[in-house]
């Protein structure tokens, strides 16, 4: 669905503007999600724990932290979505821009610092896993 939708927007607005729309839409959703689904905390572990639980409970996906260096403002996470991606083009498919926006807003709400999130990898092995690199904007 999202892809058909995206195709139409992309045709009218161009790729760059479409990416921007999806990133911002994701960020808006992330902000709402943070406000309504999570209890504010300053502890990264606690934040991750809550996020993992809610994402899992809602069936959105499994979040795993690969690296988190808050001092350097660098975080790498993977999100595995339990969805059948056999129909999707799995080769060279890396456009979870909505998710990038979503994660950036979550991190900003948590830390008060702006984050740029980039999907650096995406693979499909039964479920789809995306790897995101988040960097604090200094």
């Amino acid at each position: 669905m999202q892809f058909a939708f995206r195709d139409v927007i992309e045709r009218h607005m161009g790729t760059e503007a479409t990416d921007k729309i999806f990133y911002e839409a994701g960020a808006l959703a992330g902000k709402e999600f943070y406000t309504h689904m999570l209890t504010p905390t300053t502890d990264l572990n606690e934040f991750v724990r809550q996020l993992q639980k809610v994402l899992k409970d809602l069936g959105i996906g499994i979040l795993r932290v690969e690296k988190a260096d808050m001092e350097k403002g660098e975080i790498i996470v993977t999100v595995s979505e339990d969805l059948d991606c056999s129909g999707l083009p799995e080769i060279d498919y890396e456009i979870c821009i909505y998710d990038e926006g979503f994660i950036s807003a979550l991190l900003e709400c948590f830390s008060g610092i702006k984050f740029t999130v980039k999907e650096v990898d995406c693979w499909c092995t039964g479920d789809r896993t995306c790897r995101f690199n988040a960097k604090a904007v200094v």
Partner: protein
Amino acid sequence: MSSKPEDSITLAELLVKTLQELLASRIPPKIPDELTKVKGFQQLYSTLIEIRSAIMAFSTGDLNYRVSSKGYVPGAIKSLQAALLHLTWQTKMIASGDFTQRVDFMGDFSESFNSMVKQLEENMRKLNISNLLLQDFNIQLEHAARTDPLTGINNRGYFSELLKLEMERITRYGHACTVLMLDIDHFKSINDTYGHAAGDEALRTLTSIIQECARKNDFYGRLGGEEFAITLPETDIHGAAIVAERLRANLETTVIKFDSHELFVTASIGVSQYQAGDTMETLLHRADQAMYEAKKNGRNRVCLSSVG
């Protein structure tokens, strides 16, 4: 360009041999010239090389090897990598005290790991309790080391420590300070006549009178036997004389009860004031001398040290 079927077979065999070697050999084979012309082979070859290198890297502990190939097999390798990296992060979190971490993607290992974390948490909990008990015990021990067991006030050692600190303050800031030396009169005969229980009661009575008369910054201790000392910071000898007189009068009129007896005791008190050049010993010594002066002059009285 036409090719004979035998050529295709030879080429296919070469392909199989090369791929087999790629899987089997420690050093990957060079691509035979004939295969460089086969469409897509170079790409396949470099993907396989990358998979080889990635698995080798993970098996030797380098979890940061980046696999750029796409598709199912590279994806499976990335899933393993993501799991191991996450496990590494979880272990770090556990090491920093977050015992809520659980592994749920590594089969039997998950179970063992999780029970290890639970055990660790339990041990830490026990350790914390022991630490608290130990701290508490240390506090008690420290208190005991400073306290006279009979009266519950500072013993000689700790009183001396406090006075030493006060002496440093006086030397630095130059304000006044006085010391009272108290000694219960005829203490030996109280013990001899009424028994040690009576003597102990007399010591406790004097202690509570000292506690009542002492002001906020004053400190005191039992120096041993029936001898007590009080330090009055920022007080000159005239101020100290008033406190000493109040102490003496209170003790004299306080009835000491033990068993069925009621008795009264008195004390002789010497007062000395700090002078430039005084050490703790000289200051106490002059108070002591004044106290003996009081004894000599009939007891139950306050004597001020002549100098200062």
